[in-house]
């Protein structure tokens, strides 16, 4: 039982991170109808900026305090992600208003390759370290209840808490603030939103900025866990089955979907993996998402599309 709980908790904590990245997909899709394939590349780019500036700043300025260096690197990385958002709107989206969804998807594919290439050219392609003081050793809990207790990875636990806090903040931002309402209005109908004076271009910049911040936070968490290197871009794309499952337009869907996928892939690898030779968790997440789609094509919380004939 304790092992099952360990696997379950491990899955939930991994799932929380998937939710965070999935939220980046959902935010952009809701506001602009663009399926942002570059979200993974944004995670890598943001993490590279954070890692490298945290390393460069002490050398350039003589700052000895690592906390201060990290805070400054974070601020610079946020500014970089805002600049990326502005450039994407200015150079790509603005010219593709009212184009087919497939065209916009292709444009984000281009942005993904561009960010991956430029990121590695500017910041380097080695493995870099983000050290924000996350604890690395595990902790045993409930030793009196279960034999041997339950092992919890402190780093995963803190990462899940940060992700949960950010997800909560974003949900509130969407539901309760005027900008959030404007974002939702744009998501519902571009033309209607424009007709009541909502500036479409500004909204797109805001939403890409928000997606940039979620990418940065995800990049810092994963970068701290895995080291900052190219694979972060592919790790972030593991949130794809989450949006398939949760629905592309639903914030709660991204959260619940992330948790289901996180738990599903860990349980499948541990309990089904040995029967089929192992290594199944990556594709099993997609199988799980596709099974859900058989019953709810719009995803768990996605909007049902009904067209009049």
């Amino acid at each position, binding site marked *: 039982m304790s*092992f099952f709980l*360990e*696997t379950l908790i*491990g899955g939930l904590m*991994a799932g929380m991170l998937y939710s965070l990245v999935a939220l980046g997909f959902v935010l952009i899709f809701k506001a602009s109808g663009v399926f942002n394939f570059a979200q993974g590349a944004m995670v890598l780019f943001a993490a590279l900026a954070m890692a490298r500036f945290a390393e460069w700043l002490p050398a350039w300025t003589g700052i000895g305090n690592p906390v201060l260096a990290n805070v400054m690197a974070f601020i610079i990385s946020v500014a970089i992600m805002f600049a990326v958002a502005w450039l994407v709107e200015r150079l790509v989206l603005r010219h593709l208003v009212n184009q087919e969804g497939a065209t916009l998807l292709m444009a984000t594919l281009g942005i993904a390759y561009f960010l991956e290439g430029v990121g*590695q050219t500017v910041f380097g*392609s*080695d*493995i*870099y*370290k983000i050290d924000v003081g996350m604890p*690395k*050793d*595990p902790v045993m809990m409930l030793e009196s209840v279960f034999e041997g207790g339950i*092992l919890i*990875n402190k*780093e*995963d636990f803190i990462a899940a808490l940060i992700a949960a806090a950010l997800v909560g903040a974003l949900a509130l931002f969407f539901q309760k603030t005027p900008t959030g309402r404007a974002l939702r209005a744009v998501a519902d109908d571009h033309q209607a939103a424009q007709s009541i004076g909502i500036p479409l271009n500004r909204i797109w910049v805001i939403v890409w900025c928000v997606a940039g911040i979620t990418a940065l936070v995800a990049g810092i968490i994963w970068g701290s*866990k*895995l*080291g900052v*290197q*190219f*694979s*972060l871009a*592919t*790790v972030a794309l*593991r949130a794809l089955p989450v949006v398939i499952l949760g629905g592309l337009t639903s914030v709660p869907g991204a959260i619940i979907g992330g948790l289901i996928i996180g738990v599903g*892939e*860990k349980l499948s*690898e*541990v309990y089904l*993996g*040995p029967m089929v*030779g*192992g*290594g199944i*968790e*990556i594709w099993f997440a997609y199988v799980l998402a596709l099974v859900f789609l058989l019953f709810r094509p719009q995803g768990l919380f996605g909007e049902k599309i009904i067209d009049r004939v």
Partner: protein
Amino acid sequence: MRIRKLALATSMAVLGLSTVLTAPAALAQAKEQFFPVLSYRTGAYGPNGAPWANGYVDYLKYINAKGGINGVKISFEECEFGYATDRGVECYERLKSKHGGGTAVHPLSTGVTFALTEKVPVDKIPLVTAGYGRSESQNGAVFTWNFPLLGTYWMAADVLIQHIGKKEGGLDKLKGKKIALVYHDSPYGKEPIALLQERARMHGFEVMLLPVAHPGVEQKATWLQIRQNRPDYVLLWGWGVMNSTSIKEAQATGYPREKMYGVWWSGAEPDVKDVGDGAKGYNALAKQHGAEPNAKIVKDIQATLHAKGQGTGPKEEVGQVLYMRGMIAAMLTVEGVKKAQERYGKGKWMSGEQVRWGLENLNLDQKTLDGLGFAGVMRPVQTSCLDHMGSAWARIHTWNGSKWEFTSDWYQADEKVIRPMVMLASGRYAEEKKITPRTPEQCKQ
């Protein structure tokens, strides 16, 4: 009419003059020994691929700086393939015929090795897989063009089991033990399984197989299984980011790093440097060499290339584990060319076929290696028709938190265990591909 004749005469004169001027230059330009370089400096495996490529290229530059291979200059061209098998084959196809043909090709990928094994006999280019590739290709009677110099994965797994056995007080003490193999789910990662199963049958231990999907950044479930089953030892057969992720997950699940043993592709600086103290005590196989910053060859390369701004990559990485491995791979090929020149003409350009003979008749004794600047770095290498590996020695090194340190004596893989497996697997391959193994007489040719 007169103008046409004038134009024609002028053209002829220009053509004639240019021929006269360029012909001696062309004649004077000796043929260069071309080395195609398949590399990956970007992508998920870039942090590990780049230092290998730096070492490989630096050694070629160093040989040129010293006058070439008995006067024959080396040229090379890199092709980036991102550790993707299809792109690796594409790079090979693009480079194989350039500059009169490749001297030898090092794919630095077991997947690409599998793909090229049937191509190289047709193109007549030796396929050197120093420390990777197909284990059965040690048998040169069947795999005429493959050279897994200095080590195969069967050899690596054999040495690791010998070491673990020694730690336990003898191979017979392995009975009832559990050894987990955490491996990259690819031809590379699967390669040691056959040997481990054979050793498990011999000594009565249990092998637990745990594949990790590319690129290896998600291993939580794998390490939960390790925590559940509590193996006595974990063997790590990873590459790139998979290695550091494994060590971090071991730390996160409380598995002792002292009980972990990586293959030689899981025991370099990029695998441990961002893990910090968490990697302390982690062991890996050293393919003879470890990090060798004080080796004579390293100091020579620093002085000849990096001090003059002509080196490849960061100079502080010169002498690190993967840099050394790339450099040794280049050295073995250059020595193969030299050996071929002994037979086919000193100071002459060597074809792929001639280089193949040179690689098959390598005989680098300790004196020669010391003279090349490799004293203390590696042991003698002697290849033959039946042994394209040339040496079966390895040792263990351990990460002490800041650098790799040798922590064992030398081990030699057990020929009695490996040879029958090599003969069986290569025999099956020959049968499947309808290859008639070379006879000892044919080998001498």
